[in-house]
Each structure stands twice: as structure tokens, then as C-alpha cells.
């Protein structure tokens, strides 16, 4: 199975060649970490000292903090938390952050420029923060350069001009908590993923259901009525070799954010969400924990998720059980497969 970067409330842990190393970046809550070659980037937040991005070129031994990261004064906004870093190729990095903003860096994470189109998006006044704040948490890039982002609770957006403009792509995605159930924007996306082998296919775990789009987000089909115990959840993982396969980890609901049915359950589809089956061999029962929005990942070998109770589970795509590959870590905020 692959190596993992595990972000926790108390630093970063690396799972490499079966060994857990850490904590690194002690004192920081690591909302997400990702590697580009041997360089590691981490989106870190502190109760006391704000939000920043850290970079390590030596496997986590030493770290360099971003030189500048903030929002222009004229916006009246200030950076609250950083959520997700996505390598965009050609040395570029993208960073999703609260309050519903996207940054890019051309110098390896030293300096960051805010995306003006999203910052001044005409629908911004209709965005409302979810429990995690107005967080831009999902950033997906298609091979043709199409950029997808998702913000809770603003919805999903697509850019086909390199981030110069963003179009809402939330048709038929529910926002049950609003007066208007199917608005243009305001949906509470919990995680958005693009299938790497079929980039026009998007999967979405939402506050109000699980969805799939086969046309780049123009239309969405709701899938959680097809056998899932709940439409509410955060973790979402795919299989690069099978566009019809996906994993979700349903929770009881918005008012009780623990795994559904009092057990750690990963639900699997191999038919594009037409049906789901509980695949729980190797997972604990009873369990009353949860998996956060950055808490699941995948690579060519398998799927992975980390729990708020500090365990990481891994399962081969061709396997039949989950294995606990790390335990007794601090509450896990993110799991990312080493790329």
C-alpha cells in the first residue's frame, strides 16, 4: 500500500514504508498536506498564530513558512484558516482557504496571490459559512486545465479560463437548510473529486446527499437514496482504474456527526452509485467517531481514511478488508496519499 501524509490537530505524521513518523509541525493543526516529489507542503492553522503554509524539502526535518499570505485591505476580509493545497503543475500551487478564497503560488509556496475572480464573485453575498467556516476545501484540475473548486457553503464552481472566471455548477444539488432548496449557489459541498481517468465525471459528498455528474458538473444525480444509511458525510475516495467505483463514510446526520449505525462503515459502489454495499471487514464496531472532509484519500493501490479517534484504515482496491495502518494519533484532520 502507498505512503500517506496524515494531518492531525497536533501536527503532521508520515506513514512511509509501513512506519509512522511524527509528529512534525508540532503546535500546528495540519488541515491538509501534500507532496510534490520529495517536497512536502502543509496547510497549517493555529488557535493562537493564525493560518499559514509550510514547506519542507528534507522529508519534514525542517520547515519554511510562507512569506506572505493574506487578503487585500480593500476587501474588508482577513484570512481565517487554510484548508487544502493542490499542486497545479509547472511549479504552481493552489490553496483553498477561509473565507471562501483561492490563492496561487508560482514560487513554491513562498508567496501567494489571491484569485480575484473568486474573491469578487457576484454570488459571494449569498454564501454562508458552514460549521468549518466559509472554507474553500476542494480543488480539482482536469487534464485540459478546467479547474473545479468547492466551498462550504457556497457550492461548486468551474473555471475554464485558468481561474479568470468561475461558473456555479450546482444544478439539482439540494440545500435543504435554505428556504430555496435548489438555489444557484449556497450548497454545502463537503468534498468534491474529479475522476482522474474520466475527468468529465465528478463525485460529490454534500451536506445533503451524495452526487455524481457525468458532464463536468452541468447536471448532478443524487445517489444516496440507493442504499446508503445516510446522505450526510464527509469522506470520499475513488478508484483511478474504475470510474464507477467510489467510497463514502456516511454519518448519522448534521445534528449528530458520528458514523452511521454506531459502527465504522465504509460504503462502496462499483456501479456509479446505483447501489451501495457496506464493506466493513476490519473496521471497528461499535464506533462513534467520524471522518472529516479531508480525511479520505486514494491512489492506484487503494483507498484510505483517518478518523477523529486517531486511526488510519487502508484497503486495497482489489482487497476484501480494511487494515488499521496507524492508531492512537491525535484527531485526524486529513489523509493524503503520497503522490
Amino acid at each position, binding site marked *: 500500500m502507498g505512503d500517506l501524509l496524515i494531518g492531525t490537530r497536533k501536527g503532521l505524521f508520515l506513514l512511509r514504508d509501513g512506519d509512522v513518523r511524527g509528529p512534525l509541525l508540532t503546535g500546528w493543526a495540519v488541515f491538509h498536506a501534500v507532496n510534490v516529489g520529495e517536497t512536502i507542503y502543509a496547510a497549517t492553522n493555529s488557535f493562537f*498564530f*493564525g493560518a499559514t503554509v509550510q514547506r519542507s524539502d528534507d522529508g519534514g526535518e525542517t520547515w519554511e513558512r510562507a512569506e506572505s499570505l493574506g487578503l487585500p485591505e480593500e476587501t474588508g476580509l482577513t484570512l481565517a484558516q487554510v484548508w487544502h493545497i493542490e499542486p497545479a503543475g509547472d511549479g504552481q500551487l493552489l490553496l483553498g482557504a477561509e473565507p471562501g478564497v483561492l490563492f496561487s503560488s508560482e514560487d513554491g509556496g513562498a508567496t501567494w496571490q489571491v484569485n480575484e475572480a473568486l474573491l469578487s464573485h457576484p454570488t459571494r453575498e449569498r454564501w454562508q459559512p458552514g460549521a468549518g467556516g466559509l472554507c474553500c476545501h476542494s480543488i480539482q484540475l482536469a487534464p485540459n486545465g478546467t479547474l473545479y473548486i468547492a466551498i462550504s457553503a457556497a457550492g461548486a464552481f468551474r473555471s475554464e479560463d485558468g481561474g479568470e472566471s468561475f461558473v456555479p455548477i450546482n444544478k439539482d444539488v439540494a440545500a435543504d437548510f435554505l428556504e430555496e432548496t435548489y438555489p444557484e449557489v449556497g450548497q454545502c459541498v463537503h468534498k468534491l473529486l474529479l475522476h482522474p481517468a474520466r475527468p468529465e465525471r465528478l463525485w460529490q459528498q454534500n451536506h445533503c446527499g451524495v452526487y455524481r455528474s457525468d458532464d463536468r458538473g452541468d447536471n448532478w444525480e443524487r445517489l444516496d437514496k440507493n442504499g446508503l444509511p445516510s446522505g450526510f458525510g464527509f469522506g470520499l475516495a475513488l478508484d483511478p482504474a474504475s470510474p464507477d467505483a467510489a467510497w463514502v463514510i456516511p454519518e448519522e446526520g448534521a445534528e449528530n456527526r458520528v458514523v452511521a449505525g454506531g459502527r465504522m462503515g465504509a460504503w462502496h459502489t462499483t456501479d456509479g452509485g446505483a447501489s451501495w454495499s457496506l464493506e466493513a471487514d476490519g473496521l471497528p464496531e461499535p464506533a462513534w467517531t467520524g471522518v472529516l472532509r479531508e480525511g479520505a484519500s486514494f491512489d492506484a493501490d487503494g483507498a484510505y481514511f483517518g478518523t477523529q479517534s486517531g486511526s488510519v484504515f487502508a484497503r486495497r482496491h482489489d482487497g476484501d478488508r480494511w487494515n488499521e495502518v496507524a492508531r492512537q494519533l491525535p484527531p485526524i484532520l486529513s489523509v493524503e496519499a503520497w503522490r
Partner: protein
Amino acid sequence: MALVLLPRQLENEAGGRRRFDVEAETLRGALEALPVADLLFDERGTLRPLVHVFVDGADARDELESPLAPAATVRIVAAIAGG
């Protein structure tokens, strides 16, 4: 020069140091001269809410623009908070 003492949480971020001799006319100037200034202030120059500053033992959080005596000891303290 004033002596500025950092909390342990900032030691790594400050290159492994917790003591800095700083020459500055004001308390704000002394804090802004530190390699962790971006962690103490937000992008508007506002001291973050859970960062406390004491000058010679006295709370100076609201006195950032006050003159700083050359022999002053400035202690930065992270609030008792967290989980």
C-alpha cells in the same frame, strides 16, 4: 536594546530561538522586527486575539504604539486556551 522573549510554541518558527535583542522606538516596532511577526499580527496589523504581550511584567496588549524603553523586557504569551 529591548529584550523580546517568545513562547515555546514559536521557537521553531523563529529559527530555534526564543530571545531577541531588538532596537525599536515602539512596542509594535519591536514585535514587527521579529521573524514571527506574521504569526503575531494578521494582514491588517492587528495583534491576534490570543496573543498577549507584557512589557516589564505589565500587560501591554493595548499599548502597541507606546514608546519602548531600551532596557525593557517584552514577553509574548499565548493565551491560556486550546484543546
